[in-house]
């Protein structure tokens, strides 16, 4: 199966008793197989909502989302999801969290869990409980848990947002390594311009209220990228201009 994502005329409205908020407005986006795409935009632009729709966690929307040639209607382990918080099961230790509902007793699963623990550099912590881990370590466990299912698409919702700068850089590099090795299609939501340029082939800049795509900036720099290079700086100013360029409702920024 080809893991191309086709987002076609997707609209989403949140309703409660007295008001309805239009979060996504006729959004179209194609993410090619094996591509690394980041979505960036101001808070409230619906980028996290879009990711949840792609995951199938919310099926109450207009339009269609296709993963390969299947319509997305429910969550699937083919589309791994990494949340901003690690969301590990607090009652399971590291290796059991990674295995989840898969039996650790099976030799092939045991071996793959061990390999992933090595990959995310958590050797020696197999039996530790989430409360004993730091934020970065927990997030690495969450990444390993998603990778064990061999997802064709990995959806990441500001996965490094809550981490300190050193851990973040380290995990960004680890993620690139994984991407280059597994050729997984990656969609990463972030509010960090540097992160989006450092990681992705394509930066999708979104606009808020209602959420729509304002620009798609292809980043044609070779990997590994250096944040201090001149080309990197140029991309930064391109994206920054796109983000700040807000034609009509400037006051919306003050949320």
């Amino acid at each position: 199966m080809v893991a191309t994502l086709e987002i076609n005329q997707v609209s989403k409205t949140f309703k409660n008793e007295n008001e309805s908020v239009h979060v996504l407005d006729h959004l179209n986006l194609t993410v090619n197989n094996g591509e690394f795409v980041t979505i960036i935009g101001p808070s409230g632009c619906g980028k996290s909502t879009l990711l949840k729709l792609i995951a199938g966690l919310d099926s109450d929307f207009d339009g269609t989302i296709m993963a390969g040639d299947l319509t997305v209607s429910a969550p699937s382990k083919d589309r791994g999801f990494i949340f901003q918080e690690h969301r590990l099961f607090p009652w399971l230790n590291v290796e059991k969290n990674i295995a989840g509902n898969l039996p650790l007793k099976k030799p092939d699963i045991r071996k793959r869990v061990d390999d992933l623990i090595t990959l995310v550099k958590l050797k020696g912590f197999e039996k530790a409980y989430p409360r004993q881990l730091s934020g970065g370590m927990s997030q690495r466990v969450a990444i390993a848990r998603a990778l064990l299912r061999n997802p064709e698409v990995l959806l990441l919702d500001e996965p490094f947002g809550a981490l300190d700068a050193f851990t973040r850089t380290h995990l960004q590099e680890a993620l690139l390594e994984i991407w280059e090795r597994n050729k997984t299609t990656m969609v990463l939501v972030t509010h960090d311009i540097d992160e989006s340029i450092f990681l992705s082939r394509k930066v999708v800049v979104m606009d808020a209220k209602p959420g729509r795509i304002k620009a798609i900036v292809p980043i044609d720099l070779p990997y590994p990228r250096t944040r201090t290079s001149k080309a990197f700086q140029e991309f930064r100013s391109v994206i920054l201009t796109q983000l700040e360029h807000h034609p009509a409702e400037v006051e919306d920024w003050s949320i």
Partner: protein
Amino acid sequence: MSTQTVAQNKHLVIRETTKQSKLAKSALRGSVLPVVVLIAWQALGSVGILPAQLFSSPLLIVMTFIDLVQSGEMGMHLQISLTRAFLGFALGGFLGLLLGIIVGMQKKSEEYLNPSIQMLRTVPLLAITPLFIMWFGFGELSKVLLIALGAFFPLYLQTFLGLRNVDKKLYDVALILEFSRREQITKLMIPAALPNILLGIRLALSAAWMCLVVAELLGADRGVGFMIQDARSFMQTDVVFVGIIIFALAGKISDSLVRFLENHLLKWQDSFKA
């Protein structure tokens, strides 16, 4: 980052080793008050300030206890009481857990069942006792059912509460990992609700002991409660005290058992332990 965690682990190891002495210390602290009370009681009794008729001295109570054990009377009463408590607790606890899970998992069954159960819960147990005796007689059935009723509500309530407190965020994870409906229950809902369920078991156990005493005091020909009632009519204060102490011990032992289970099953919890 890793050095920090190593340091944390070291800290954990240190905590493990000091745990033993801390445990001994806290046991010592807990026993200060009872020991002081016992000594004062014995002293006041020996001097003659406390009337021996109403307050048998601790020494006499111990002697009576030994007598009762040696004659086999204690064993017989304890056995029948424990059997009643166990059967009632098992029946009520099982039904409470089962219904708590059903009502906790399904909105529809909550709407159908929960209002009625909540209404029944507010009726004082002692008010139902005469009805139970009329329906099921003075035999074992009415006693076991009364105990079951007492054990049912705490477990039902806590299970229901625990399931409703399961983090929606973890539920999303279970959906993404494609947990089956059964796995959602066994690998997410039950472990997440376990702190509440264990609390429910503790509360159900104490309710079961209480109902046991009520049932045996009201009408029985055997059991620790009967022993107390019987001794009361003959003014055997020492035997009454022995009965009370047996109930206290049984309650404490069963509670400690659940505490042990809690420590073992909830070791993943990161809660405040002063």
